[in-house]
């Protein structure tokens, strides 16, 4: 749709504003994989409450908004195999790289972090190759 980019810019602004508040008020980086991962492997035990509070907002607000909007569609593949493989790779990869789209992408690039830029180049590159192979060559997704 032609208005998609406007919504993209607006929604992106909200994401960046959220990250800016978390940095300036709580002094922390809003990286989704780090916030979740620290709870999973125990490395974020001393900040567990803050992490859980953020994740609660991240889950509840879009759920409520989607309900108000009459539902939202994720268009997630019906293939359980693809979902499980994707989830495992996202979980392992973001924790080995120490960041995902929000941490390395939004928070890293905005401070001109070399690690953030390199990570973003590699995950977008790998994602694009994966879509070419699994969509256009194998027809799996």
């Amino acid at each position, binding site marked *: 749709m032609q208005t998609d980019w406007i919504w993209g810019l607006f929604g992106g602004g909200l994401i960046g504003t959220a990250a800016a508040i*978390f940095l300036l008020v709580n002094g922390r980086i809003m990286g989704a994989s780090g916030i979740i991962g620290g709870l999973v492997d125990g490395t974020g035990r001393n900040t567990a409450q803050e992490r859980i509070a953020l994740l609660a907002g991240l889950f509840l607000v879009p759920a409520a*908004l989607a309900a108000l909007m009459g539902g939202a569609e994720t268009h*997630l593949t019906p293939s359980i195999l693809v979902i499980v493989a994707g989830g495992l790779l996202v*979980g392992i990869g973001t924790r080995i790289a120490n960041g995902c789209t929000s941490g390395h992408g939004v928070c890293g690039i905005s401070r001109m972090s070399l690690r953030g830029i390199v990570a973003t180049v590699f995950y977008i590159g790998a994602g694009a*190759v994966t879509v070419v192979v699994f969509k256009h060559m194998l027809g799996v997704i």
Partner: protein
Amino acid sequence: MRNLCAFLVGGLFGAGLLLSGMTDTRKVQGWLDLFGDWDPTLAFVMGGAIIPMAIAWRLVPNRAPILGGTFPSPPDPKVGRKLVIGSVLFGMGWGLSGLCPGPAVASLGFGGMGGLIFMVAMLCGMLLAPVLRNRLDAVPAAG
């Protein structure tokens, strides 16, 4: 106070993900689909998010966070094997599913069973990661 702020930040983050279309895997895979029907939305989302955050980073030097504590240390300039390998694995999973950790949480409320299965698989991956990380640390760097 810290928890309330974190909750509001999470809510704003989630609202942004939903409204920008990033909880729709078709838009994410559309962005990655350079040789198909390419969808540029994600670039606008990234750009829109980076601008306020870049301003925030400029306010950091010589100050302290409003609720106390210290700001994160300056970025580590070291680009290692783990960063590259991890990012490639993450990118593959992102391409396959169209989900990354933020939208995976944000879409749990309306993503059905598939979204839930993705979340469980992602958490399992995060549990496995330290083992793989230690393996990578144990292998001496080439050259």
